[in-house]
């Protein structure tokens, strides 16, 4: 609950300029689900079912983490670049 409140306060401060990178960042953050997936997959006596599901979940979440952070960074690089380029 506290996090939700904090989230609200934080997002308010973000200018619309950066909404897209913000969304892709929070997207990457939501891939924190990877934690749950790891717990599930890595258990000693996980059943086949939960291993398969967990495996796919780790895969999907890592995909999100990697591409999420990379793309956010790529976007932000563009935002930064032309500040010095400006006379």
């Amino acid at each position: 609950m506290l996090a939700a409140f904090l989230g609200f306060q934080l997002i308010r401060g973000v200018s619309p300029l950066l909404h897209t990178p913000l969304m892709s960042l929070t997207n990457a953050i939501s891939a924190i689900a990877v934690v749950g997936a790891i717990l599930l997959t890595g258990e000693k006596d996980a059943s086949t079912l939960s291993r398969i599901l967990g495996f796919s979940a780790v895969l999907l979440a890592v995909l999100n983490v990697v591409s999420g952070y990379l793309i956010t960074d790529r976007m932000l690089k563009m935002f930064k670049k032309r500040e010095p380029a400006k006379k």
Partner: protein
Amino acid sequence: MTLDNTILPLLYMLAAISFILAIKWMGSPATARRGVIIGEIGMLLAVVGTLLRFEVVNYGWIFLAFALGTIIGIPIAVIMPMTAVPQRTAFSHACGALASALIGTAEYYKGLNQGPAPTTPEMTALIIETLLGFLTFTASLMAFGKLQEVLPQRPITYKGQNFVNLGIFAAAAIIGIVLIVSPGQVVLFPIFVILCLLFGILLIIPIGGADMPTVIALLNSYAGLSASAMGFVLNNRLLIVAGALDGSSGFILSIIMCRAMNRSFTNVLFGAFGQLQVAAAGAQEAKPIHSASPEEAAQILDAARTVVVIPGYGMAVAQAQHKLREMFDLLGKRGVNVEFAIHPVAGRMPGHMNVLLAEADVPYDKLREMDDINPEMAMADVALIIGANDVVNPDAENNPNSPIAGMPIIQAYKARTVMVIKRSMNPGFAGIDNPLYYLDNTLMLFGDAKAFLSSIVKELQAVGKAA
């Protein structure tokens, strides 16, 4: 286990703090990249901490999944063109949501077969997790399909649509509640999953391209909430915090989007637009318009002192942002002040236009927000509208019967001359005619945005050489 009791909570707490800082620093372009880096660190801490947990013993599968995810993820991030950002975001929502839905499913069966049986609060969280997860999965795939134009962008409506949707949702909710009360009803769980998947599909079908920014933000929120619910199931605080951050961020973005269109959530989701549209289209009649050639347009631009460019989705489709920047440079050299007015819902996701223009090296201090630029519109010599439609439609202010009545717009009509680059007279995604096109000071520039801008650029260069 000392490791689990002391180091782990510490790592998780640090990770949570990193995420909060990441979002905070995202607030300004100057610190945003630092935000990404701290976010990455947070994620690393969380993953390492989790891998160290004593109950995690089977590393083989995990690393294989890591490797595969990375191998697939990197090309997606590097190759993808910036115009495809909305699609990627939708796709990534689908992945994230599916991941948490799968975990929820696995947790359910695990609790059932191996015990301990989930308690009622756990089961509630689990149901919410899978509901939101599966729903967001198919809904995001649908959104992806629409954005990628694999599926028709126009809203698809049919009679009794809301009734069917609500019915399915109600059925899913009832089964969900039954499952919460008695988790042993194994048969019901697959039915529940199917209903959620189905509801996700049906939810997006009636939503048109113009509402995509809101929907994407909302799906972002769902994916986050789903992760948060997972945190309650697994009793993992980090998941709760990170999920809630994501959830609230998506939620507030969708509120901003809704406000920018003067519409309510229910209105967007239950697509009242579809019905109104038919009536609006019927009223259309042939009215005189003025059109102009690239040469004329270039002369007008050259003679202007202030030009406000209003980009929309059409610019993204035509990939015209680089040509636009060339024009911006040329005009800038000749002392014409060019600004860009960005409507909050221009494009297909929040902030879409900003990213595209940034990609083309337009300095971000030239990108102005709607409320900021509107008072200056009357002073502008030229308003150049590129592939935008509804966000400049004066009907929103003047015609109370218009479906978009009350939606805040960029007041392009106040400019001395309005130029609209558009492929044809077809109405925009909201399917509404735009009276702006029939004004005496409006010039219609028919053509592909990129091709047309190239012609203008050529003209400006020619004039420049002659002078």
